């Protein structure tokens, strides 16, 4: 009951200035964790979709959802993890790795195994793009480490429920 859990929360919010600040401010003022946060416009340009990965004790996670719902600019909140429904989550990572000598072939092989792409090539580096869930990204990073990773950029997780169910405005 009391262990810390990691949850993925989906939000529909008003697409207007200041909304991100309200949400980030809520997390910082209440001392909640944010592991990742991603945001983008939906089919309806007045609405943005946000995915937040957070963690805490069950009571804290419940509070996070309720506090988010309390914000006037937040239209809908669903704690995907708490619903028990299956959902797909993905993150994209861009890594600039060393690609000289043995590392060059090794980096190519690993990229292939992870169905990633090399999107930029220079005599000494690759930029590798890999998309996947948390486990896959973590594994790819681990395996590429020996090649020498110079830079890592991650998008943060995006998530959507499996099957016909979807997050609607009302």
């Amino acid at each position, binding site marked *: 009951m009391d262990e810390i859990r990691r949850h993925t929360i989906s939000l529909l*919010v*008003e697409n207007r200035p*200041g909304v991100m*600040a*309200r949400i980030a*401010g809520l997390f910082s*003022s209440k001392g909640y964790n944010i592991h990742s946060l991603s945001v983008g416009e939906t089919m309806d340009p007045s609405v943005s979709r946000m995915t937040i990965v957070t963690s805490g004790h069950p*009571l804290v996670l*419940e*509070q996070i959802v*309720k*506090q988010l*719902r*309390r*914000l*006037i*600019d*937040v*239209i809908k909140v669903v704690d995907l993890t708490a619903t028990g429904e299956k959902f797909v989550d993905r993150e994209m990572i861009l890594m600039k790795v060393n690609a000289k000598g043995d590392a060059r072939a090794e980096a190519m092989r690993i990229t292939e195994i992870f169905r990633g792409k090399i999107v930029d090539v220079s005599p000494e580096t690759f930029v590798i793009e890999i998309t996947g869930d948390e486990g896959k990204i973590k594994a790819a990073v681990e395996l590429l480490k020996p090649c020498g990773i110079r830079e890592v950029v991650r998008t943060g997780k995006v998530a959507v429920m499996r099957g016909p169910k979807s997050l609607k*405005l*009302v």
Partner: protein
Amino acid sequence: MAKLKGYQIFWESLLKEGVDLVFGFPGGAVINIYDELVNYPQIRHILTRHEQGAVHAADGYARSTGRAGVAIVTSGPGATNTVTGIATAYMDSSPVVVFTGQVPTGLIGNDAFQEADIVGITRPCTKHNFLVKSTQELAETIKKAFYIATTGRPGPVLVDIPKDVLTGEAEFEYPEKISIRGYHPSTRGHPQQVKKAAQLIAQARRPIIYAGGGVIISGASRELRELAELIHTPVTLTLMGCGAFPGDHPLFLGMLGMHGTYVANMGISNCDLIIAIGARFDDRVTGKLDAFAPMARNKAVGGLGIIHIDIDPTSISKNVEVDVPIVGDAKNILEQLIDVIRTMEVDWEGRHRDWLAQLKGWDSQHPLQYEYSDEVIKPQYVVEKLWEVTQGEAIITTEVGQNQMWAALFYRYKRPRQFITSGGLGTMGFGFPAAIGAQLGNPEALVIDIAGDGSFQMNIQELATVAEYRIPVKVVILNNRYLGMVRQWQELFFDKKYSQTDISVQPDFVKVAEAYGIKGYRIEDPKEVGPFFENLVKMKEAVIVDVIVEREEGVFPMVPAGAATSEMLLDKPASAKNGERLKRLLPLNFPS
């Protein structure tokens, strides 16, 4: 449709909201609003002497009437001066709408003269806030602001209006109705939860109703009383709840918490079921969380847990895990609950007889009391006399500290909206401007600010406001020349090291009052108190009364910070009592 200027739209919108009284302070960014004000004789503007005073006054108006209070200030420092007032209203769920001027949209972000990002600054202490981007959206934004401030769990809303939005033009059409897709306050309780609550109540042997400010906001006092009488269950109130249940009712236990009565704190510690209504389990109520309500929360000893009625889902299971949450408006839910309970056949009186007898025992063991003296005025005596002389009918506002606790404990409130205090934020300097707002909202009422000498000095500039508009508030200063509550902590927990709490160097409050053209009096003899107050309540003008009280009087009972609610200090340790002259006050008249 004819186009109106932004500053005209501003006042037209306020008229549409039924506003006839605003508090404010002009400045460059809002000068057009003030220029236009003369064309709106329907609206009375009260010029306070500080923007903080304007917001507290609007807050006092809101709390005493239930209607939204309005404040208007300029950009930059005008706006930042409102922050304490806004945070005060936010913590106590008071519907205040604050309009701030802003530099023209083209200058925002340029560090322009008198520019402050007030929307950013107040984001965490408003229910919501807006920056108006164009004259076209001004009317709708004002409509939204009032709607959000006054519905659901009320709270302050700030509307920041750049100068060019005020001088721009737009067609004026005030929306009749508004819908905000991210805002749907729930009002009715879930019937299944209500039923569950009724069943728990029927099982209880030692239930207690713990009610707070939500009952007052919801207008549920009558329903609260009906429920308590129906199920024959004692009621304790939070500081914010004072007035929600009649102070002289046989089922009333007094306030609970850090300075609650012995019987209320013993009641909450020994009950087997808590029925919490519009209260939020604040740390000043619960004391040490693990030790709060140990019987009710322990199933092994027959505890039935906690029922929690609240309109704000975030209040539920925030500090204390509850068993039966019911989200919605207290009045509606109590009506629903009473309906269900009426269908039950329970001998409520018989079931709770032993429990009420036990409570009565605790109360006679340690009633609310203080040591009377005929040499020096006791602050509790002052409050008690005020209560007597006003026959419990006055609107009382308070500052923060000892004066506030004595005002809560020794005045018995009859009605909701009669006791106005900064409970959540604990803002010194609140009571005086709040009294101004309460008086203007209730012109016929006798409004008294029970003040401390420290707090009163924090918004003392509002004496000019009182003088200018002849606002007949009475300020009764319990003057102990200390920051009394902090001194009390220092006495009890810091070896009487009175670090920075002695404020003996202070103005002559009588002369200060007179300097503003206001009547000022000083009382130093206990024998004068009664007769003076008899006169005071007949006076039709503002009066400042400097009551010189016992310097080192304490507020008791007291639950030390971090202790369990049942671990109360009932008096100063090793108190040097001059004989047994304890005055036993406010005995609870339980039916025997």
